[in-house]
């Protein structure tokens, strides 16, 4: 029997017994829908948790010491590897590591003020800032804006930046300026420096703002909790807007280095500098801002306590989520460094998600298994009903394999249709869940647009599983039909 003929025969049979098969495949549809829903949910939650909340493939190695703000015990004392360029190089050679980014924190107090353009009022805050090499920040709209303007001499070739002019030896030289006077309210007169540059009080030169980046998670936390909480408050904060990365890019604020609300630096005269938020990046510190590492090195040299020149932490990016565990093991066991607790939390969260997804997948497998038993039942019934017909087909020349192929093929079609319907139903329920989630659940940090993530493999597994279980269910009926005695079937014995 050719495949075409087999399929025609199967199509005719299915159409005739459509109602029976529709009833018996309800279980398959429900089981597959359950599977698709929970696997999609598990994957969706995992995506949010691992990629957005924990940024799982980024590890942060810190010295095995107890690093509490200013009271930092030296890592070397505890036998751990030092966080210097040699360690960075070693880690770069570890399989699964995509990049290693040293971070250096400000080791002296600083405070920031600004936000009037955005909030209608200036805010003052302690500034937490760190520095990383500029070249590692690649996820900005314009990565070239994140650069250390003070890191070396700027040549005139590409034109001098705002506030500089071409001077001796084709080098850009900063223009001198007179800082604008402040009136009694603290409002400054117009700045004499051109473009983005501003006149710094200490250097009396036109300086370029320090480019800083922030972490998108900061924005998430602000929008998801601060903004939501403040909506109900009185006063200026009640009007704080929901912020977007685009609204914040280009934001200027002033920073006083060497002095803050809680104290002053051990050394050096405090200076005021302007910063410009040039974008959002996963590489940035979560609570605070990140600037090119050169600035931090220089400021620490001026204001900080004595330093060995080590980095404060190393941000390690792995090539994928699977590489995280071995790389983490390397960092903790071989280098004797610690990982920030984000890693452990991420691991716990990942495990919980995996377990929950596995439980629901199991439940769906149970449903589908029961459905397969149901399929067996239906097929046995259908075969009993079609006993004479099968006898007739045998009389007309059908072989035993022809008959079992016919029954199994019917099962495949029922399974494939049930699986496809189940996928559709699962997607539909997921869409409903997303709509309800968006509508009825308040904003919270990292609230995703969708709770689900879909992988084509899920659907392949779902439909394949449905077909498999239907086939399994039809095995016995098919064997029975094939072994039916045609003479007895035709005489109705």
């Amino acid at each position: 029997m050719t495949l075409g003929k087999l399929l025609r025969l199967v199509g005719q049979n299915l159409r005739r017994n459509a109602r029976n098969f529709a009833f018996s495949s309800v279980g398959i549809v429900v089981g597959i829908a359950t599977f698709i829903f929970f696997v999609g949910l598990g994957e969706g939650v995992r995506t949010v948790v691992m990629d957005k909340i924990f940024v799982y493939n980024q590890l942060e190695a810190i010295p095995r010491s107890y690093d509490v703000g200013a009271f930092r015990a030296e890592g070397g004392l505890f036998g751990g590897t030092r966080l210097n360029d040699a360690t960075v190089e070693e880690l770069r050679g570890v399989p699964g590591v995509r990049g290693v980014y040293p971070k250096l924190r400000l080791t002296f107090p600083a405070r920031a003020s600004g936000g009037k353009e955005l909030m209608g009022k200036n805010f003052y805050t302690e500034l937490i800032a760190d520095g990383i090499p500029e070249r590692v920040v690649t996820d900005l709209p314009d990565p070239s804006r994140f650069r250390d303007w003070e890191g070396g001499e700027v040549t005139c070739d590409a034109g001098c930046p705002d506030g500089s002019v071409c001077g001796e030896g084709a080098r850009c030289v900063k223009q001198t300026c007179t800082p604008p006077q402040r009136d009694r309210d603290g409002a400054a007169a117009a700045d004499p420096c051109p473009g983005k540059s501003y006149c710094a009080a200490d250097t009396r030169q036109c300086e370029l703002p320090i480019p800083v980046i922030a972490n998108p998670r900061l924005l998430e936390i602000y929008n998801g909790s601060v903004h939501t909480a403040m909506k109900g408050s009185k006063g200026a904060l009640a009007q704080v807007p929901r912020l977007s990365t685009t609204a914040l890019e280009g934001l200027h604020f002033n920073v006083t280095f060497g002095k803050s609300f809680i104290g002053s630096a051990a050394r050096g005269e405090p200076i005021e500098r302007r910063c410009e938020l040039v974008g959002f990046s996963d590489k940035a510190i979560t609570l605070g801002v990140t600037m090119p590492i050169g600035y931090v090195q220089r400021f620490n040299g001026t204001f900080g306590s004595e330093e060995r020149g080590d980095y404060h932490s190393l941000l390690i990016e792995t090539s994928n989520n699977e590489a995280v565990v071995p790389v983490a093991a390397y960092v903790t066991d071989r280098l004797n460094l610690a990982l920030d607790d984000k890693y452990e939390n991420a691991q716990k969260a990942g495990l919980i998600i995996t377990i929950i997804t596995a439980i629901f997948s199991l439940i769906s497998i149970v449903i589908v298994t029961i459905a397969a038993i149901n399929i067996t039942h239906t097929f046995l019934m259908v075969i009993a009903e079609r006993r004479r017909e099968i006898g007739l087909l045998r009389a007309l020349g059908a072989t035993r394999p022809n008959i079992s192929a016919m029954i199994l093929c019917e099962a495949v079609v029922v399974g494939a249709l049930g699986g496809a319907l189940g996928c559709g139903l699962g997607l539909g329920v997921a869409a409903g869940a997303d709509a309800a989630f968006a509508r009825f659940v308040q904003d919270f940090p990292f609230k995703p647009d969708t709770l689900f993530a879909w992988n084509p493999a899920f659907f392949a597994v779902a439909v394949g599983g449905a077909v498999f279980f239907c086939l399994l269910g039809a095995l016995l009926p098919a064997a029975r039909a094939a072994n039916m005695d045609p003479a007895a079937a035709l005489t109705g014995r």
Partner: protein
Amino acid sequence: MIVFDRVSRSYGRGKGQHVALKELSLTLEPGKFTAVVGTSGSGKTTLLNILGGLDREWTGSLRFWDQPMESLSDAALSALRNTQIGFVFQHFYLLDHLTCAENVQLPSYFDRRPPRPDQAARAEELLRKVGLGGRAGDRPTQLSGGQRQRVAIARALFNQPRLILCDEPTGSLDRRTGLQIIDLFQRLVEQDGLTLVVVTHEEHISRMAHRIVRLEDGELRSNEVNTPAAAEEG
């Protein structure tokens, strides 16, 4: 040429064993109409099932033209049924969810030879031949009993078999319609040289055969050559 040589068939085992056919030896000529008669339970259907390759649990030997049927595999027997034998049953056994033309083409589903290009046309031609031109698209449920049996006959003829086996083909029909069916058979035997074996209870039908085989308790009671009576006589 069909030659039964001491063919036996028994059902059950031990005490409950029942011998339905006892050492039957019989020769059927090709191109002839043979009627098989006998009381109920005498083994007529058993004989037909063995000859039709539907039953394999028998002993003895049976030559189907040049093939020894006792040594054919299930697949070979299936092919034999498909290409060399046409079946007509008392209760027609048409598939109600298919049209008449589709029913007629059913044997082609299991035909391992290259498909003929004119299948649908052949089905219609056969339906015309059995007097049902124009009903090709109808469902069997729209037809009368006699018409249904004609569709079944067209189906039996589809793969141009040598042998047509009928188990009480007129059993569900009134006398007049039954005679028309037998008349149709007679014409087919004459035109196409088919070999026809018909099991019947009805004497007016057996009288139309070239040979009347009478069974009794699974044994051959008589085997007579008959001069066929004309159909109009009944």
